[in-house]
């Protein structure tokens, strides 16, 4: 879009729904380029560290509600990760990764939804915060971490030759035709490892980004209904907001499940 086009539409821009940008923008008035996503991540970190501080204090006491809550969360996460990876030893070994994915993504999504209210109260807040996972940079790093850890585990458990031989030179089968097909399937799996990074990160990013877009479109549609200047009908975005609460949990669950499945492939024995 050319510059003069932007200038002619600069006044009309406030009439449409506020579509969030696909990446975090730098905060105005700072000497260093700190993006809105980073500020939101700091807020999420503050929430998580406060929770950890409170839980850590509660664990030292005899019994308390926070202690019960913390133990319950850990127990459920442990059961979930054991079910995903398949055996208890490896589930304990990779609890740090999958548990962090689940807790961080869920907290980030919930905090991002609560920040929607801050933006609704004062629209200027949109220049400083945005949902953490609606920035592709964050999700791309998490997807890369999941796949790299799975690959490193595979190399560590099976050795470099066996691990990459399974992808690049997969000579298995009884006849020549079966072996040729097996080699091509191995190459497909090799390409699939790169696709996994994209699919993991794009799934999370798109769900949260489209959710934010959906809410702002619903707010805009609600503001079009005549309400004697109060704008009270923007409340029709509430069902979407509650739906996004479900999505917030679901995406954290899915991300941890899929990372666990990739790890499971790495830790379990080769069948042939």
């Amino acid at each position, binding site marked *: *879009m050319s510059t003069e086009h932007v200038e002619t*539409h600069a006044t*009309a*821009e406030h009439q*449409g729904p506020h*579509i969030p940008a*696909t990446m975090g923008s730098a905060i105005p008035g700072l000497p260093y380029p700190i993006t809105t996503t980073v500020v939101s991540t700091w807020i999420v970190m503050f929430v998580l560290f406060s929770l950890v501080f409170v839980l850590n204090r509660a664990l030292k006491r005899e019994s308390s509600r926070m202690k019960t809550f913390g133990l319950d969360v850990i127990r459920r996460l442990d059961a979930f990760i054991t*079910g995903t990876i398949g055996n208890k030893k490896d589930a304990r070994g990779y609890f740090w990764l999958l548990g962090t994915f689940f807790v961080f993504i869920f907290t980030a999504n919930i905090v991002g939804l609560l920040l929607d209210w801050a933006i609704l109260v004062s629209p200027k807040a949109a220049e400083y915060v945005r949902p953490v996972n609606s920035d592709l940079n964050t999700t791309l790093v998490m997807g890369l971490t999941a796949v790299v850890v799975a690959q490193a585990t595979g190399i560590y458990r099976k050795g470099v030759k066996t691990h990459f031989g399974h992808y690049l030179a997969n000579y298995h089968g009884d006849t020549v035709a079966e072996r040729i097909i097996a080699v091509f399937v191995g190459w497909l799996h090799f390409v699939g490892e790169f696709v996994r990074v994209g*699919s993991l990160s*794009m*799934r999370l990013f*798109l*769900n949260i*980004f*489209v959710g934010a*877009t959906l809410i702002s479109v619903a707010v805009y549609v609600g503001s079009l209904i005549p309400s004697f200047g109060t704008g009270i009908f923007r409340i029709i975005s509430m069902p979407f907001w509650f739906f996004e609460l479900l999505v917030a949990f*679901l*995406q954290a*669950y*899915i991300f941890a*499940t*899929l990372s666990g499945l990739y790890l499971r492939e790495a830790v379990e024995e080769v069948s042939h």
Partner: protein
Amino acid sequence: MTNLTFLPLALIGVIGSGIGIGLIGMGALQAIGRNPSASGDINAKMLTAIALCEVPGLLAFAALFIIK
């Protein structure tokens, strides 16, 4: 401003995603109907399949806003 020229194209993707999620829900409900005791396991697998299935629709929807 968003260019809505590609809106019909984007909606095709959303239609496919919706049909897919409906089929997954149908299969899960039928499986639970046959074997109600396995509903916990089926629910978890259903959610994973739904998450895999809704990505093309979301891609189409987001591409509408990304293409200017």
